[in-house]
């Protein structure tokens, strides 16, 4: 007797796709940036990323085992969280920090809410912020990248050094690039674009991140609304108001400098777009993106912490449920 045909409820056909496929493409899109970080910082970069991935995967596996839940490692989401945490670490970070960040991300931020899909805050970012406030000094020790291993010199990131120099700004400096020059850092936009400046492992090259991000957008793995609204509004705010602290007028900010530094591309393309923790509707996503842009600007421009991307996104994560509540699509035939 041949096998019986399936009995299912409609619809009888489905579009191809699965969580595993989504996560797999995200990983693929992150590979170039990962390779580049290893090229720039050597084996330490590989160690940090591996450690955070291993910690994330082991934590998820153990929790599944301990609480007798079905195995969820196959969906690759823990690997993505691990890689993103690794990407957010400075190169010389003590290895226990990314490990703690991964454990916190998986166990507290994701698992305690019910696992993948149930968490409301981006686990990788929450993990990063947790260790950032816990071990601030270790999380802000940077090295100047060099092909085949990092330069021994440690210094602040471009944004950090600009913050620093701004506190004692002398006349005649018309923008962050000039400040970089005085801090002895590479000074062309191309250097920023390709990642020849100090920074977290994964945020080095804006170019590679944009390529990966575009790939995901073209494949419709992630939506375009959030990156466009985020980068657009952030650029606008920076252009409009950032020039003022250098004595310039309105609309004199150095947009390119801010776009290519401080993990903005990593945040806008790979973290803010996390489906689980971003709104469901198009309108909602645009509002979410605008909010991320605004808060990144506020934190970067006025805060003590130079980067601001992580905090802006997790702050907007808080609002996602409310955005979803108020930005529901208009229902057919229902007059409000």
């Amino acid at each position: 007797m041949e096998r019986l045909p399936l009995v299912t409820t409609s619809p009888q056909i489905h579009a191809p796709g699965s969580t595993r496929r989504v996560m797999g493409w995200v990983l693929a899109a992150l590979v170039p940036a990962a390779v580049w970080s290893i090229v720039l910082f050597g084996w330490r970069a590989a160690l940090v990323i591996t450690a955070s991935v291993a910690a994330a995967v082991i934590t998820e596996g153990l929790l599944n085992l301990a609480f007798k839940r079905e195995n969820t490692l196959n969906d690759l989401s823990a690997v993505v969280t691990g890689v993103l945490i690794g990407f957010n670490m400075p190169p010389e970070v003590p290895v226990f920090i990314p490990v703690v960040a991964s454990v916190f991300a998986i166990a507290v931020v994701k698992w305690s809410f019910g696992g993948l899909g149930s968490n409301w805050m981006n686990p990788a970012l929450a993990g990063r912020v947790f260790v950032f406030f816990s071990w601030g000094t270790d999380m802000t020790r940077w090295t100047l990248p060099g092909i085949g291993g990092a330069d021994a010199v440690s210094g602040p990131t471009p944004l950090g050094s600009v913050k620093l120099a701004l506190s004692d700004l002398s006349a005649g400096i018309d923008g962050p690039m000039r400040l970089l020059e005085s801090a002895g850092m590479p000074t062309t936009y191309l250097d920023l674009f390709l990642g020849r400046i100090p920074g977290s492992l994964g945020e080095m090259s804006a170019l590679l991140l944009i390529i990966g991000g575009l790939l995901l957008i073209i494949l419709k793995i992630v939506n375009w609304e959030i990156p466009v609204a985020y980068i657009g509004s952030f650029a606008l705010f920076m252009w409009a108001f950032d020039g003022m602290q250098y004595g310039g007028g309105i609309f004199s900010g150095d947009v390119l400098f801010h776009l290519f530094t401080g993990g903005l591309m990593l945040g806008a393309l790979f973290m803010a777009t996390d489906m689980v923790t971003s709104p469901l509707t198009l309108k909602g996503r645009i509002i979410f993106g605008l909010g991320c842009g605004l808060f990144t600007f506020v934190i970067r421009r006025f805060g003590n912490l130079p980067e601001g991307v992580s905090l802006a996104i997790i702050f907007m994560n808080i609002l996602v449920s409310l955005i979803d509540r108020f930005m529901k699509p208009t229902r057919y035939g229902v007059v409000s």
Partner: protein
Amino acid sequence: MKGLFKGLLKENPIFVLALGLCPALAVSTTVNNALGMSAATLIVLIGSNLVISSLRKHIPDDIHIPAYIVIIAAFVTLVDMTMQAYFPALSKSLGIFIPLIVVNCIILGRAEAFASKNTIGASVIDAIAMGVGFTVGLTAIALVREVLGAGTITIFPDGGVIRIPGLADKPALVFAFPAGALIVVGFLQAFFRWLGEVTNK
């Protein structure tokens, strides 16, 4: 005797009844602060339960809330003044959370639910039970937060500090802040729920 232990697990004010949370979180950065706060709360609890249950026949129903509040506030102020005078360091680190014992829901709650209806003896025992439960809860939170957030266990501020090797040099600072406090309370609540279930079996 049974009444005395109910506050520990089954009716633990912090973990099961979710009462008195604000001071529990605010002052639980070190173990000794937690113990100081617990002592203050215990004294106020006993005092107010004692007075309220002995006056219970003389306080008409529709003025009972203001009357209780005055009694509780008086005890709180007493404790506050005494602490300022004789335990200045503790008083300084507990700050406005000493006067805020007034609005700690445990105290008014027990006054209304228990002391206003029971004899003096029973009320005092109830106060002790709740106070001990509060102490256990608060100390548990403080222990976790101090160990993780500072890498130490402070029993007396001068000399009684245990340093945990490794952690003391690089503690996870976040646990000393509201974020860490709330997370610790969440997990401890879940843990106590589980413990309650296991011990009931």
